């Protein structure tokens, strides 16, 4: 795990656990926002990122609020809108940018792009494009954790659209039958590419799918990181205690198109305005000020240090070489 930024300020000893948590959340959410802004609005437009770009702008509370409760034995299967999971698990911002830029320093050394990355040393499994495919894999990981007598839990992330797929249901069913320690985390951002929820499923909530599997399911405000964190604790405790999987539906909104090339004209503009007012970072900052967990100087300091850190990461990634074409045939099989 990466070092959590030191809480600065004039009264460190008096801070409550809530304040410490809020500072951690703010840091990781800001890092994710700043990184994805650079990715989508600078590096992609500069042509330094040649492939797809899928950001989680407005959804940062979900990967942060959940992943902060993961321990070293836990395994994460983040979706493409969960960049902060990588940060929380200790992957450097530079490597993430290098990944997007197709550089040798990225997690897949140029073999794959964007959020298609993983590293078992950090307990991170790479998604494939068919997003629900990680659901049965998460079940298998949880099976292996139990097999080995580990206390670990699999954190499995997906969007609302993924829950329409057969492998989602197969994986959830198997996990439920076997009572496997999986926390299923849905970032319900209400659109799967251009398809709204109403054309995705006949039930009102993803959580409504839980009872069919005899699986507890909870709906949480996905734009409130502390609420996500509190709900995740309930989910993780349940899964870790051997009672089976738990479904957490985090209601949020995708504040972008499906990807950088998609202007999302199909989304009623009013929805962006409405959800823009619920921005999870703005909300957390306001809460921190109101609770006295931080002052405006600290908030500004966080923004500045995040920008600096991302500047350095961009520099590092840009200095990372492109992969050598002579490596094309390497690693199809072990020892090849």
């Amino acid at each position, binding site marked *: 795990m990466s070092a959590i930024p030191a809480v600065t300020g004039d009264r460190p000893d008096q801070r409550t656990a809530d304040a410490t948590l809020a500072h951690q959340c703010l840091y990781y959410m800001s890092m994710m926002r700043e990184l994805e802004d650079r990715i989508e609005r600078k590096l992609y437009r500069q042509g330094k990122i040649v492939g797809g770009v899928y950001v989680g702008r407005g959804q940062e509370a979900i990967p942060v609020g959940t992943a902060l409760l993961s321990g070293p034995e836990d*395994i994460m299967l983040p979706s493409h809108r969960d960049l902060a999971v990588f940060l929380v698990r200790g992957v450097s911002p530079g490597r993430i940018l290098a990944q997007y830029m197709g550089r040798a320093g990225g*997690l*897949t050394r140029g*073999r*794959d792009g964007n959020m*298609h*990355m*993983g*590293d*078992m040393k950090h307990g991170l*499994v*790479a998604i*494939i*494009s*068919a997003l629900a*495919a990680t*659901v*049965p*894999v*998460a*079940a*298998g*990981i*949880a*099976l*292996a*954790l139990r*097999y*080995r007598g580990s206390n670990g839990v*699999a954190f499995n992330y997906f969007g609302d659209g993924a829950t329409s797929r*057969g*492998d989602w249901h*197969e*994986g959830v*069913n*198997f996990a439920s*039958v*076997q009572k496997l320690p999986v926390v299923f985390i849905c970032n319900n951002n209400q659109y799967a590419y251009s398809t709204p929820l109403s054309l995705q499923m006949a039930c009102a909530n993803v959580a409504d799918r839980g009872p069919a599997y005899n699986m507890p399911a909870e709906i949480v405000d996905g734009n409130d990181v502390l609420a996500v964190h509190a709900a995740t604790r309930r989910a993780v405790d349940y899964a870790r205690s051997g009672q089976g999987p738990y479904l957490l539906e985090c209601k949020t909104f995708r504040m972008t198109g499906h990807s950088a090339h998609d202007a999302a004209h199909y989304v009623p503009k009013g929805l962006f305005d409405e959800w823009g007012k619920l921005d999870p970072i703005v909300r957390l900052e306001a809460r921190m000020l109101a609770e006295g967990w931080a002052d405006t100087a600290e908030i500004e300091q966080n923004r500045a240090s995040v920008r600096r850190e991302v500047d350095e990461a961009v520099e590092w990634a840009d200095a990372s070489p492109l992969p050598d074409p002579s490596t094309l045939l390497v*690693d*199809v*099989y*072990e020892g090849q």
Partner: protein
Amino acid sequence: MPTTYLEAIREGLWEEMERDPNVFLLGEDIGIYGGAFKVTAGFIEHFGEKRVVDTPISEAAIAGAAIGAGLMGLRPVAEMQFADFITCGFDQIVNFAAKCRYRWGAAVPIVVRAPSGGGIHGGPFHSQNPEMWFVRTPGLKVVAPATAYDAKGLIKSAIRDNDPVIFFEHKGLYRKIKEELPAEEYTVPIGKAKVVREGRDLTIVTYGSMVWVALEAAEKLAEEGASVEVVDLRTLLPLDRDTVCESVKKTSKVLLLHEDTRTGGMAGELAASITESIWDYLDGPIVRVTAPDTPVPYSPPLEDAFLPNCDKVVEKARSLWRY
């Protein structure tokens, strides 16, 4: 006492489970019922529910859960009840398992057992030979043993391999063939073909159940004076082109035989490889004997017409020999 092909697979699985506590089985009806073909009969009683996992009817969950466990360093052996049903777990195998190492350096040491093949009147959904769907997926290994010896040696190698292996076991061979197996421990390497009959005039390259058809045809042709060499591929991916080409260089004539359908079959790939690398050794056209491009029919006269057999091979081989 001779061991059947089915018993050889059982022995291989059993020995690997005794040897390595990370090896476990999962699949439909494999535990309490012992498997549709009884390959795993008695396993759950000996190894327990932890290591013999009866799953829901969910091929994607079986394949996906195997991948997840494999990523964690376990060595799952997943059973598809029939190779035909592997389609339901296809995405997991070809998009997830096959690409993990290349993309992000993660090993997926899994085995997917797939009972395949016709001749048992199973009809269109219990008789197929879907190996080529996987042979053209880099990152997978694909094996298809023909003998009890190879079935045992290859299942053990597959379990020990650090890449995903699809293990096609031919249902028609399960109880049809038997042989004495060594009492001592052995494995058969993945990626190595084998000359199973030596000859001078013509090479038949084949695998799986058709090895036995090729050997029968070679025997008949010998009565006519033809000396036929038979190469059993044993592994389809990675393909041992060297052994094939060495044989064809010697005989200068080659007949490619498989039970799978024709278009896009292994014969096409072999023909291209032979032509590319040793074209000037050939003294005749490359000949294929395969199933036609149809689904596998159910009724015996139709299925018999569908499957390659000794007479078809002898006829084609004879005219190639005389070419």
